[in-house]
């Protein structure tokens, strides 16, 4: 018997599995970010100068851009998480998971625009100075 047969073709992706893998990746990214974040913010205990020094590093334009990415990551993970919870707690919702995905993502995109566009302007502003 062949315990681990080689795979010829990767398994077909579809909405559910793509949503899951993105959820997993964004989750892990967020954990990574969280660790950094706590460490960075901890500098606030060292007083205004120290804190502002650190912050000026992490507020370079490139970081401002990354922060927009962070917002997207958070919004995706959060609202896909909401979808999972709706599927789990609402009655007979598993059949409608694709529609639910569409709905929560619409909200997520809306929020991303509301937050992301100003952040992008801020970034442009920072670059021009």
């Amino acid at each position, binding site marked *: *018997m*062949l*315990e681990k*047969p*080689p*795979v*010829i*073709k*990767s*398994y*077909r992706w*579809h*909405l*559910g*599995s793509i949503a*899951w893998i993105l959820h*997993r990746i964004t989750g892990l990214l967020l954990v990574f970010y969280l660790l950094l974040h706590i460490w960075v913010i901890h500098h606030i205990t060292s007083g205004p100068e120290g804190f502002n020094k650190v912050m000026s590093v992490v507020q370079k334009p490139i970081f401002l851009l990354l922060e927009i990415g962070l917002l997207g990551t958070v919004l995706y993970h959060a609202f896909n998480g909401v979808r*999972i919870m709706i*599927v*789990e*707690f609402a009655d*007979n*919702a*598993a*059949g409608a*998971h694709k529609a639910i995905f569409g709905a929560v993502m619409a909200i997520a995109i809306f929020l991303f625009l509301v937050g992301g566009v100003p952040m992008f302007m801020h970034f442009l502003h920072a670059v021009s100075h």
Partner: protein
Amino acid sequence: MAEYTFRIFRYDPDKDETGRIQEYRFEPEPGWTVLDALNYIKWNLDGSLTYRRACRHGICGSCGMTINGKNGLACETQLKDLGTTVVTIEPLRGFPVIKDLVVDMEPFYDKLYAIKPYLITKTPPPTDKERLQSPEDRKKLDGKYECILCGCCTSSCPTYWADKNFLGPNALLKAARFLFDSRDEGFEDRVNAVDDKHGVWRCHTIFNCVEACPKELNPTQAIVDLRKLMLRGRL
């Protein structure tokens, strides 16, 4: 019809170290299913091609395999619905391969045995009469009792690929089929297997199982229903 290329996974336990692909090219007839094509190969081109089949109309669950990267029944898959003339056929993923497209289903059945796949009753039934069950209660079994044990769902589940101890969508669906049967009194007997980190809690609602199920059942619904049942039991 046009000429088709069939790329088929081959593995002969007597000769091969590992699997390989063999290609067959021919022109199938209109209306043929993947199983018809396999039969054509076996009966005309290469008698050693090995796969399971029996009913050839989607009820026995023998012919589950991975067709162009998606699980399904060979006998139920129309070639023309594949949308391509290159057809890649592999054995069901996640199970050891015995030969060619035949996999060892024993791990799959083992999961089923774990949830005690039979009606458990403690009150004796009426003699020479049926137990009554309202149509509404019977309706709760719809979408659960139709399973043909083809294995397409469990074999498509990325969680099962990663964790071979995961009960998998099929066993959980079966558990739901009994736990939601108004006649069943086996909650206590089954719950340990279901309410386990390798049971109902391991699923990540990936929905591959739903996409794969040829009988259009929804194991994910069964799984989340079971979770709610466990949750209610604890509150």
